[in-house]
């Protein structure tokens, strides 16, 4: 099903044995020191007056078949990270190796085979589907461009896809506006899957949906993940959804990963004060927990990514802050067997 891709450029991987748990021994995706800054222009000459530090040196691996969650509040750089990985944003520096090949410097033509292998679905199903194309044409366009199946089989393949995402065959001749939010998200998933990708970036795929529809779409994604052996980078602001859906979670704060740990360990093992604050700020599930689990209220707001603080980005809101935190930025280091933490206050 998946084409063997011959790549022009030599593989440029940095292997990291800590999380390289893919069967082939090599992670499917390997991100190293990824930086994305957006220039900010201003003044009469419209010169670059500064930059927004959206992603600030992020490194991690995603093993084949793994679901890795990225959680953080708005402006933490999680969406930029997802887009930079599939090169919808050109990274400022750093590397993204996909299946052993550094794709950050590939030319357009060389990138094409990778575009097909890595797809992205977006939060807003309303704006990510062309309103003037019927579902049939939306899907056909991508399938024919990438020659996913022989021309004669395209129509049958479209039927198959629509059934896979749990929609009726009549949907083919409708326009995006004729569907509800949940159905549109199903279409977004169908379009991403049409290319038989190995890797999917899901950028807040269920955040715009009602609770009952959210569960439907999450279940669908889980089924398709199993069926196609997908590897998923799942971006969300909702820690409960991440915990339910993912194997491992990366916690981002102001462009940095502050903690990385398996979702099973989240409640018991999370050590970064920001991760703990996120867990504590989530509303309780049961009114009986009111006394036993008081809401953790973190003071203040996230600092501006335009002018990030010199030391630890979280220092201004951190309950454990020390002098060192304000001057020196902690690096992400292994703490215990399965987790990495970037914090001076957390011992090894």
């Amino acid at each position, binding site marked *: 099903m998946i084409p063997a891709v011959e790549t022009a450029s030599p593989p440029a991987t940095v292997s990291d044995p800590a999380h390289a748990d893919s069967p082939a021994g090599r992670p499917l995706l390997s991100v190293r020191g990824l930086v994305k800054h957006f220039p900010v222009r201003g003044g009469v000459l419209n010169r670059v007056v500064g930059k927004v530090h959206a992603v600030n040196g992020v490194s991690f691996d995603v093993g084949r078949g793994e679901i890795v969650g990225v959680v953080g*509040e*708005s402006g933490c750089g999680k969406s930029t990270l997802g887009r930079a990985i599939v090169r919808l944003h050109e990274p400022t520096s750093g590397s993204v190796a996909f299946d052993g090949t550094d794709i950050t410097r590939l030319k357009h033509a060389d990138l094409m085979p990778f575009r097909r292998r890595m797809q992205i679905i977006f939060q807003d199903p309303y704006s990510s589907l062309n309103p003037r194309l019927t579902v049939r044409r939306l899907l056909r366009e991508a399938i024919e461009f990438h020659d996913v199946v022989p021309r004669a089989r395209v129509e049958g393949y479209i039927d198959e896809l629509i059934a896979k*995402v*749990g*929609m*009726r065959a009549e949907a083919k001749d409708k326009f995006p506006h004729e569907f*509800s939010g*949940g*159905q549109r998200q*199903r279409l977004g998933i169908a379009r991403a899957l049409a290319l038989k990708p190995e890797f999917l970036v899901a950028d807040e795929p269920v955040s715009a949906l*009602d*609770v*009952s*529809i*959210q*569960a*439907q779409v*999450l*279940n*669908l994604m*889980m*089924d398709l993940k199993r069926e196609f052996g997908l590897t998923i980078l799942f971006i969300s*602001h*909702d*820690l*409960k*959804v991440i*915990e*339910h*859906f993912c194997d491992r979670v990366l916690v981002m704060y102001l462009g940095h990963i502050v903690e990385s740990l398996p979702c*099973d360990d989240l*409640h018991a093992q999370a050590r970064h004060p920001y991760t703990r*604050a*996120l*867990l*504590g*700020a*989530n*509303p*309780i*599930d*049961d*009114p*009986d*927990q*009111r006394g036993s689990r008081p*809401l*953790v*209220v*973190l*003071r203040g*707001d*996230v600092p501006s990514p335009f002018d990030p603080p010199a030391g630890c980005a979280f220092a201004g809101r951190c309950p454990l802050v020390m002098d060192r935190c304000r001057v020196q930025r902690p690096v992400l280091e292994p703490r215990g067997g399965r987790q990495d933490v970037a914090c001076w206050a957390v011992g090894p």
Partner: protein
Amino acid sequence: MLLCCFAAFLFFEERGLAPVTTAPPILSVRHLTTRFRTDRGIVTAVDDVSFDLYAGETLGIVGESGCGKTVTSKSIMRLLPERTTIIDSGSQIMFEGINLATADERAMRKVRGDRIAMIFQEPMTSLNPVFTIGWQLDEALKYHTDLGRGGRRARAIEMLKLVEMPNAERRIDEYPHQLSGGMRQRVMIAMALCCEPDILIADEPTTALDVTIQAQILSLMESLRKRLGTAIILITHNLGVVAQVCDRVAVMYAGRVIEVAGVHRLFHSPQHPYTRALLDSIPRAGRKVYGRRLPTIEGIVPGLFELPTGCRFSDRCSRSQPLCRENEPRLLPVEGEGEAHLVRCHFPLGGPAPGPVALTTSVGARP
């Protein structure tokens, strides 16, 4: 059976809905029906909604988009466009002896903002971008109090301090765009509370905010309620928020109230299959579901133009019987619970939280 229903109906009409205290409710909504004129004909967005709000309590109104929770609150405030809105003549929104459903605009102005205040989901769109926040706080005080200019400014600063706005003296002269989302919501709360209203209606106040900011706003609302004794109607789709702050909850579905209960009772012994399914379908902290599949509710919320006859949930309900499709159930007391727990279902679930409701969990709902 029918007689029994009728007797129960009379009983519950007499006693009022779900009193937790013996004091009379400060707001009593009965048979509220709100319709809209649209290009496709008249549509009923809120249909025969009844509930009570008691002094000092937080009542949650929960439901998915389009269930009528916002229309209910805007009907109470009479903030819906008059030309296209019809509030049925049988509707009663009793507040201090006035029926807000039929009150004239002059009477409404005395109530709105002064006695009943409202905050909205998106604070940026509800604040005027061309005036400072001080000016906007002053406007409400000018209208509703006799304070002089200096007194009003002092009061505005005091209100900003009350909502824990850092540097209130400086912030008062800033414009809305200079504030973060959480700060703007604090300003909205300060504006809403500056006349010390009896009731605060909060329509998805934290939905647009990050979770750490949501925690700040929720704990602020909670402490203000305790301090000022304001009753709160909290409209939300987030059951976690309900679990965190509400005392009682009304669940809405397709324009109807389908269940009303105390928050503990609702979470532990929901009687309506929809409430139960909604509670089951949210991922919970530390709860691993086998195979990571969540129980789902098949299908989608029916459109207001294609409501099923009979129970509005009947076509998505795993327990529905022929009776459900023919006859719409009434909102009636749950056996043994009296008015403290009301449900609109022919076959309520009974017993405290049985095993998971047999909800179909096939790949996807085929819409």
